């Protein structure tokens, strides 16, 4: 690995946030053949990425008869918002016919504390690993990285037993802990890399200035870690909002998250699959993480730059 100390110390403290401007080979400004090629490729690839979203959107605006006519790519002849209404407030699972609306608030209630706790713990871990290494810390970190590769299914049973033993099975706290545990490996890695890229001298200066473990964390590190926190928040909101397995195993019907309801709607078929409702439900469920992406995309790249580039 390139010597990160050198890399870090040569960076002025204020440059640590990472850059967001392009730095590749400069193209000529004209409409050269190269530019045509460049944009051509980008547009074609963009179409491939947009296709499923387009299909989802178009389908969700069609009525069932039109869907049966086929042509999933055809724009709707008659736009109807009924599937959206149905997905949000009418679709049934078993006896509950209140669509996704109930799950939405459950998801919010699960996501917010889980995101907060997992990020708080992972950032402190990363900080301790990067700046306050103690004997054995690396061994624990290696095990933690191993944890990143453990399929959730494998750990389902031991965690059931664990939660039962500490009496938190079936509670919201239990679910928050589970999300914190499984978010920890990758988040800790990101935070550790980020804090390691903060010039070491800054940390030393703060120690000379009399700041301790928590003082440096809260007063020096936290205020300059916005980008990596944005990354962590995006990753965690996405992961936890989209989680199905833990949500269904560790909660009760009253507190099922939205994804469980999505699964129920999509998989409860009444004779014919109501593709339009399914697609509307799918989009609605994805709306929260999608919004966060659209809003903070630029910060995301900057944060990733700071958390992943320096190893």
């Amino acid at each position, binding site marked *: 690995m390139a010597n990160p100390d050198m890399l870090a*110390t*040569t*960076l*002025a*403290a*204020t440059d*640590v946030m990472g850059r967001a401007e392009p730095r590749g080979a400069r193209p000529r400004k004209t409409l050269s053949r190269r530019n045509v090629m460049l944009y051509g490729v980008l547009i074609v690839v963009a179409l491939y990425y947009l296709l499923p979203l387009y299909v989802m959107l178009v389908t969700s605006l069609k009525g069932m008869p039109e869907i049966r006519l086929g042509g999933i790519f055809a724009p709707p002849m008659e736009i109807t918002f009924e599937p959206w209404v149905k997905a949000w407030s009418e679709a049934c699972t078993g006896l509950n016919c209140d669509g996704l609306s109930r799950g939405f608030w459950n998801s919010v209630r699960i996501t917010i504390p889980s995101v907060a706790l997992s990020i708080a713990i992972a950032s402190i871990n990363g900080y301790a690993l990067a700046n306050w290494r103690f004997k054995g810390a690396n061994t624990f970190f290696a095990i933690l990285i191993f944890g990143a590769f453990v399929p959730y299914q494998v750990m389902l049973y031991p965690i059931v037993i664990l939660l039962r033993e500490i009496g938190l099975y079936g509670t919201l706290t239990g679910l928050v802990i589970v999300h914190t545990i499984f978010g920890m490996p990758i988040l800790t890695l990101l935070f550790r890399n980020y804090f390691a890229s903060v*010039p070491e*001298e*800054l940390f*030393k*200066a*703060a*120690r*000379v*200035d*009399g*700041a*301790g473990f928590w*003082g440096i964390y809260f*007063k*020096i590190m936290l*205020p*300059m870690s916005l980008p990596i926190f944005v990354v962590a928040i995006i990753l965690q909101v996405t992961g936890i909002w989209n989680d199905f397995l833990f949500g269904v195993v560790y909660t009760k019907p009253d507190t099922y998250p939205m994804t469980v309801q999505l699964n129920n709607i999509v998989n409860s078929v009444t004779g014919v699959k109501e593709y339009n409702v399914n697609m509307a439900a799918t989009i609605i469920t994805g709306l929260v993480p999608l919004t966060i992406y659209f809003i903070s995309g630029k910060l995301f790249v900057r944060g990733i730059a700071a958390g992943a580039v320096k190893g």
Partner: protein
Amino acid sequence: MIAQQSIDARRVPEAEERRVIGMPGAARASSVSVRDLRLAYGALTVLDRLSLDIAEGEFIVLLGPSGCGKSTLLNCVAGLLEITDGQIWIKGRNVTWEEPKDRGIGMVFQSYALYPQMTVRGNLAFGLRNAGLPKAEIETRIARAAEILQIEPLLERKPAALSGGQRQRVAIGRALVRDVDVFLFDEPLSNLDAKLRSELRVEIKRLHQQLRNTMIYVTHDQIEALTLADRIAVMRGGIIQQLADPKTIYNRPANLFVAGFIGSPAMTFLKGRIAERGGASFFEAGGAAIALDGYQGEVPPAGREVILGVRPEHVSVGAEGAPATVDIDEPMGSDSLLWLTFGGQSLSARAPAEHGFGRGEKVGLGFDISKASLFDPRSEQRL
């Protein structure tokens, strides 16, 4: 070893001449003492049984190439690295196991290490707030430091809005406000361009003369070392090669490494042996001979192989003297550096800018042997 020998030869600063200006307490007795320091990571020993005593008010420079352990030593003194063995005393107190903040030190870093999210004022106040000082006291100290360093107009700016030189002033200010006895500088000028560097160098010197604090200054730049230091500790491989005042270091380097590291243009080394003719000792190499009359040190017996180290400015070029041939002429503005072949070896000499010697010309050399050094080729020590 060498370090230990040299300790006794340390120069005592003229304490009585100090004028005390600025920080109260600057005149308090203070000294740093490193005793048998050892630092090892597993099998890798970085510093081995290193001892160093620094008198109060002394400006000491730790000089050496990168990787010589000078910054490591500074970090140990600061308490930023946990040492494996030995003790560190500051102002008569064993601080080996104390936190950096409790050691009575201030530190300035190469990359300035200013807290980017705080204003200059915030940066200066951070340590004081941590120490729980009253608000008024903090304000007083900041005002005074800002005045000394002339950074008053910058107090409300963020570091990102400062130039490199300004940032380093603030960094120095941060050490200053702590009102401590010992200042530690870790290559503070390395990130600045040449002009700013010489400006700030003078400023640091002035600061030292003003405050008379003990200062330990790490650098790889010999000009900084020679201009600033009361004493220089030249380091290599985790060992202090020589600890002495700049003049001694320059004129009587303890060994080949110090001799070669200090001085620009560098010292020339000639291989040869000692000869004796008529009671006088000569240095002989490739048929040429140099009389060793007036050598400051012990001339070894005849027949012994030695290395003669001589600085370019101590070689005079003229029509008369030991014969040599001009190879290359490097004009340097105020004077010229001539590269010559002497006794089959290459040698450099400083000549006036208008010396008038051309390439291939035969010339005669004169040596100021009182400023030259003889080294043992095996031990590399000065004889």
